[in-house]
Every structure is written in structure tokens, then in C-alpha cells.
């Protein structure tokens, strides 16, 4: 995998708008053929990064290569090989959706008519409606169909489903999976965590214009804490003393704690000695990963204390939105604000 050429290679990217620093040394590498999740809160610099990758904006410093080419100097060559869905799709009020799809696809260099019609069908889009009559979700469908009906080898999707309903979200996930199977590379910017978890091979988390973490979800989970809940025959003693175990709450036979990725083995052994009746462990969700990086911001916004619940709610909503609930509830909020100091150490 690592021998594959990189579809997107970005290092030290900087971009300022007046006094605002949108990108502050951003790094990103997307391997050919993977679905790469690009995560960050609003204003973290996701859209700006994509626009630099498209050559719509010029970076102040740093290097960017898209499909091996300089996106500013050879924008059109790059564009012929990629398709882009903007976060805020604006259509021409007096052009129909079908006309907009054809326009965008043909300007990109051709359209697979059969695939276009199939996608219109799957997304349940009426292509005869005028641009001004579409809702946000339908405008997004127009851009998604135009992008996916092309044979572009790279798809840049900027929060493509923020206006879609749950059914359409599922269709979207299917379509992205098909694109991946067809060998295409996808950069999927989002703050819908469940979606990225379902689709992405690797993830980059950015914050304030800087990459704070990048890797596979497994790697990231390994580097963070797992939450364990157990019921034992005898009270599990000695857990607090173990290195890497945090936030132990003992309630008779029930115990609950968080443990660093590399220290799970020792902790489970202690439980085994106490006689395990039941054991539930939750891998850290992206929600928790995000909270580790953004926890201090939430705290600054007066979110102290309730973060765990809030996180769980958001997580549940996201899972519901995706039409499936995978049951990994995280109603504890172990680290949240507290662990924010550890953020950013991993790359």
C-alpha cells in the first residue's frame, strides 16, 4: 500500500485571508485508491484546503501535488482527472438540474449517460426542475450526480451529504463504495463522524489549519483509550495501581474504567482474577477522538461537564442519520476536556 503513488500530497500548506490564518502548515497525504476522511469542525480549513487542491486559490507557502501535478499551475489538467462537490452547491436559477449536470460533466470532458441516468434514478432527483426550485439537498444531489457520473480518478467531496436525508445518505455511501471498488480515490471532508467511520480507510483530523492526527482508525484507536465496563464476582482490586488505567469507578461488583490502548492486557488480567461475569468494552469512537482534540474549545464555549452526554447524543444522531445503529454507545465521557492536553502528539 505504501508503495502506491500518493493521489494528494500536501505539506506545510499556509493560507491567510487578511489577518485570518485559514491554513497554518497543513499536511495531508491521500493514497491512490483509498477513501480518506478529512475531519474537522467548521472553520478548521477543510474547504480552503480543497480549494487550494483545485487551484481555485493559491497557497501562501507549502507544497501541494494533486495526481502528481501542481494544482495551481496545471489546474485544468488536474481538473480533467477529478470531480468536485462543493460544500455549498449553488446552481443557476433558470437552468434545470439536468442541464447543470450535463454542463458540469461535459465541461469536465464527457459524461457516461447511462450512469448519469442511473444515478439520477437512485438519488430520486427530478432533473427537469429549475435550479431555484431545488432545496439544499437536491442541489447537492445535482453536484453529486455530476461528479460521480464522470470517470474522474479522484473525487473531492466537501461535506457532500449535509443536506441529504437518511435514505439518500445510504445511497451516497453505496455510491462512494462503488467508486472505491472501481479504483477511484476519494477525499471526503466531513464532520459527520459516523459517515467517515463507515467509509474511510484512513482519516486526517485537522484543527485551526493544521493536521493534528492522521492514520487508520485502528491506529488512532490504539493510541487512545478504550472504555471497559465489567461485572465481577469479587470486587476487582488493584486496577487503580495499574499504569495506563484511568477514571476507575467501583460500585460493588460493577467496575468501570478507561485504559490506554497498549495497557488493555494487564487490566483485563486483573478482571479475570476477580471472576468476570460480564464484560463490555467500547473502542473509542471518532467522537471521542474529536473531543480529545477539540475538548478545550468546547470547554471555552461553556460546555464543561456535560460533554459526554452531548457527545453521545451527537453520536447517536449521526448513527441514526446513517440508517443504522451499531450499538457502540459512549455515555461516559471519560476524557473529553481533561485529556485535551495530550492532543496533537501523534502523527
Amino acid at each position: 500500500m505504501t508503495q502506491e503513488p500518493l493521489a494528494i500530497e500536501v505539506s506545510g500548506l499556509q493560507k491567510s485571508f487578511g489577518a485570518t490564518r485559514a491554513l497554518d502548515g497543513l499536511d495531508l497525504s491521500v493514497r491512490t485508491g483509498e477513501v480518506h476522511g478529512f475531519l474537522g469542525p467548521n472553520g478548521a480549513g477543510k474547504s480552503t484546503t480543497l480549494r487550494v487542491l483545485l487551484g481555485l486559490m493559491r497557497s501562501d507557502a507549502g507544497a501541494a501535488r494533486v495526481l502528481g501535478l501542481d494544482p495551481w499551475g496545471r489546474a485544468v489538467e488536474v481538473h480533467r482527472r477529478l470531480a468536485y462537490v462543493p460544500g455549498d452547491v449553488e446552481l443557476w436559477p433558470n437552468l434545470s438540474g439536468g442541464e447543470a449536470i450535463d454542463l458540469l460533466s461535459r465541461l469536465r470532458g464527457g459524461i457516461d449517460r447511462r450512469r448519469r441516468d442511473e444515478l439520477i434514478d437512485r438519488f430520486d432527483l427530478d432533473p427537469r426542475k429549475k435550479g431555484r426550485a431545488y432545496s439544499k439537498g437536491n442541489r447537492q444531489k445535482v453536484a453529486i450526480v455530476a461528479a460521480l457520473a464522470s470517470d474522474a480518478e479522484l473525487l473531492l467531496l466537501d461535506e457532500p451529504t449535509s443536506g441529504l436525508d437518511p435514505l439518500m445518505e445510504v445511497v451516497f455511501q453505496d455510491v462512494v463504495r462503488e467508486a472505491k471498488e472501481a479504483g477511484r480515490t476519494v477525499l471526503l471532508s466531513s464532520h459527520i463522524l459516523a459517515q467517515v467511520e463507515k467509509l474511510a480507510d484512513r482519516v486526517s483530523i485537522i484543527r485551526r489549519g493544521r493536521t493534528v492526527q492522521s492514520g487508520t482508525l485502528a491506529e488512532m484507536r490504539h493510541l487512545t483509550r478504550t472504555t471497559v465496563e465489567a461485572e465481577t464476582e469479587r470486587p476487582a482490586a488493584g486496577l487503580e495501581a495499574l499504569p495506563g488505567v484511568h477514571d476507575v469507578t467501583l460500585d460493588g461488583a460493577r467496575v468501570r474504567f478507561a485504559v490506554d490502548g497498549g495497557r488493555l492486557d494487564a487490566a483485563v488480567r486483573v478482571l479475570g482474577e476477580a471472576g468476570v461475569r460480564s464484560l463490555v468494552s467500547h473502542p473509542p469512537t471518532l467522537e471521542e477522538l474529536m473531543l480529545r482534540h477539540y475538548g478545550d474549545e468546547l470547554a471555552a464555549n461553556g460546555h464543561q461537564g456535560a460533554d459526554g452526554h452531548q457527545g453521545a447524543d451527537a453520536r447517536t444522531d449521526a448513527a441514526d442519520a446513517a440508517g443504522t445503529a451499531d450499538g457502540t454507545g459512549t455515555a461516559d465521557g471519560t476524557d473529553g476536556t481533561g485529556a485535551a492536553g495530550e492532543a496533537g502528539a501523534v502523527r
Partner: protein
Amino acid sequence: MTTTATRPAPVTAASAPALRAAFTGTGTLLRFALRRDRVRLPVWLLALLTGTLATANSYATLYDSPEARATAARTMATPAALAMTGPRHYLDDYTYGAMLSHEMVGFMGVLVGLMSVLIVTRHTRDEEETGRAELIRSTVVGRHAQLAAALGLAVLANLALALLLAAGLAGLGIESVDPAGSLVYGSTHAAAGVVFAGVAAITAQITSSTRGASGLALAVIGAAYILRAAGDTGNEALSWASPIGWTQRAYPYLDDRWWPLLLCVGAAAACAVTGFLLAARRDVGAGLRPTRLGRATASRALTSPVGLALRLQRGLLAGFGAGLFVMGAMYGSIIGDIEDMLGSVDQIQEALAEIGGATLAESFAAMVMVVIAVVSMIYVVMATLRARAEESGGRAESLLSTGITRTAWLGGHLTVALLGAVVMQLLAGLGFGLAAAAATGDHAMTGDLIAAALVHVPALWTAAGVAMVLFGWLPRATALAWVVPLYAFVVGYLGQILRFPEWTADVSPLGHVPQLPAAAMDWTPMAVLTLVAAGLCLTGFAGFRRRDLDTK
């Protein structure tokens, strides 16, 4: 969208408290609308006021003897002249005041109508189309509050205009322009304004697009103007079918009649009530007329940069094209009477003599061509700046991330603007030429006048060039491109009459155009203007290739 399942009963059947509730929040929204239009409205009012005061002053200078005014009255008696001004009764005692009312009330009625229509559609249909209305309507705001606030704003603007005009004109101290007449004069404008505000209150319910709503209302204004033009030249009953005809029949400075203005107030109230009733019958965001479906696929022609630009600009192209053709035809139709009309006005004669030309008609045609070229220039600047509108509207972003270069995309819009300039001048010249040939029987004039119109094209291209440079290098300052047509108008039209120094004309691109048919053809300035335009456009392209795209 935001309508509830149990739709409230129509207003007619509603109880008084329910009716009052439907207007909840009107005052707040009106203050908000005033805040939003705090620059726009004063600019409108000031422009209308200064235009009127300048005209009143120029009459006092131009027709400075009773004989000159009597001659003017005689020449105004032709049907063509009456069609462009107002009813014949004004000519009975052609004082400065009567002259002002005769020539301005109808024409200004169109402009005030335009202002009122734009106020109403901007605060009603545009709010709905952009989705902001949903946000507002979901708060404690009655279903009629937005329309009521928009109409309130239009009424306030028109009252302010009436008072400004009354005070301004009375303050000029021109003989026969007395305070009582000035108050009637100002009120004619307000009366026309509120009628067309009422019309817009109806059209805003009919279509779901702002442009459609404004366009329908503007068509009503146009129809009202044509009705009165037809009525004033022939059967006066037609004028009585037009609100503009009513305002002209107040005869400010002549009879000072108020009751025709009451007709306007009544019509405005009836229109407004109709608007409220229609609004209660539709959903927020929807129009009474269902939106038509478009094509499911794009035609070949659409999917090229020029094809797309043409498609996006076809409304603008058709509107200006038709307008310029009619404008040309109107000037052409009076060219036969021109010797009588202007023969007694010394200043115009001197200005025309300076232009040269074998006959007064030729000189007049050359002078009118400048006005026509300025209107075409407005089109050219609008068409070129369409690229900017596409960019700041966020629609350029998706296009420019496809296989189309920035140059090709911008070139599409520029091509439409540049070729559009040719089409505009051709249509205006054709209208002018055909009407002039019909009026004078001299068919050779048609070709001459088309050529006289077309020589202005390179000068129009330089205006596109200026817009291009701004777009490429200072995209946030593209509005500055409007300085070019504005300056060209002030210098090219007023400058000739008010005798500005020579150099002021040299700064305007139109100042270098050979003044056909009065002067001989000169290819050198044409070539130079074309080269300047090309240089400016290339500079604009270079700037656009270097800068960031403005995104939302």
C-alpha cells in the same frame, strides 16, 4: 414549507383580532427594511431629485424668452413629440412649470415606478426566493407583515420624494414654478410610485422568482406608458386607462388638480388588498403560477463557455435589444420635425453646429447616437460584470473545478458582452434608420444611421475592457466600472449642450468616435479604441489568472 396543515381561513372571513395578528411585526420589519436600504433609497431619491432640478434649471436657461417657449409649444404639438411627453393641454400655456410637467411627469413616472417595484420585490419575493423569509416568518411575525412592511417602505420613499421635489422645485425660484404647483408636481411622482408598488405587490405573489415578479411589474409600467403615449396622440380615453396618464392629468403648474391623483391612491389600495388576498392563498416560497419544468438534459449549445454565457444573459440581451430598438425608433420618428423643434433653441443649435453636418437632422442624429451608445454601454458593463455576479454567487466555483480554463470561462462572458455591443448598436441603428426613413421618405438614411450607430462599438468595447481590468485585479471594486457610462453620459450628452471644455470629452471613449452622419468617417480612432480595448481585456485576463477565486 412553513404552512401548517390547518390553513387559517382567508383574510376576508377572518375576525378582526386574527386580521391584526396577520400584521404582527410590521413595524419592526419596516424599521429593518429602512436599515437595509439606508444607502440604496437615499441614492434613488437624490438621483431623481437632482435630475429634476437640473432639468428645470436647464429649461430656464435654454428657453429664456416667451418666444422660445411659444415656438417650443408649437413644435411639441406633433404626434411624435406628444407621444414622448404628455397631453396637449399643457401646450395651452407653456410656462417653465408647464414645460417641466409636460416633459417630465410621464417619463419620471416610469423611473419612480421602477424604484417602487424594486423596493417591493426586494423585500418580499427576493426574501422568499433566498429563503430568508422562512427565517423571518418562523418568528413572531404575521403572514402579511413582510408585504405590509415592503409597501410601507415604498409609500415612505414616495412621500419623501414628493416632499423633496416640492421643496426643491419651489426653492429654485423659477418663474411660474410656485410652491402650490410644486407640491402637486411632487405628488404626481408619489402617486405613480404607489400604484406601481401596488402592482408589484400582486406580481410578487404570481411568480416564484424575483426577476419574474419585477419583470411582470415592469411590463405593466411599460404598458401604462404606451397606453398614455397612444392616448395623448389620439384617443384620450386610452390615457385614462393608464396610471401615468392620470398623474399627467393633474396638470401641475397649470391647473393643479388633485383628484386624478386620488384615482392613483385608490388603484394602489385596490392592488395592495389584492396582493394580500393572493398572498393568503399560497405557500411561502411558492408562486401562484406553477414554475415551469426545464429540460432534463442540456443541449449541445449550452455546454460551451459562450453557450452558457449566452443562455445566462439572454434575458438581458433581449431586454436591452428591444429597448434600444424602440429608443432608436422613437428618435427616428421625430427626426423629420427636428428643424421646427430645435430651430429656436440657441444653445442646442450652437451645440449642433459644433458637431457639423449638412442638415440639422444629421447633427441631431449624431447627438442622439451618443445617448444610444451610453445605453448600450450600460448593457456592455452589465454583461461583462455578469462574470463577477457568477463568481460571488458561488456558481463559478463548480465550473472552474472542471476541465474549463479560467480564460475560457471569462472569455465566454466577455464574448457575449463584446458581440452584444455590436447587436445593440445594430438594433438601435436599425430602429432609428427605419423610423427615420419612414418619417422623411429618405430611404438612404437607414444605412447611414446603422453605420452611425456601429462606429460606437469600439468605444463600447473599451468600457468592457475597464470592467475586465477591475474584475481581474480589483474584483471587489467592479462597481467602479459604472463610472465609464456615467461619465460618458455627463460629458457626451450634457457636455455638448452645457459646453464643457474640450479635454473632458477626450477622457471619455465616446469622445473619440467620429460623429456620423454629421462628420466624415475616420478609421484611426476606431483602430486605436479597439487596440485599447484589447489591451484592457488582456490585462483583465492576466489578473484573473493570478488571483484567488472568491468563494462563499
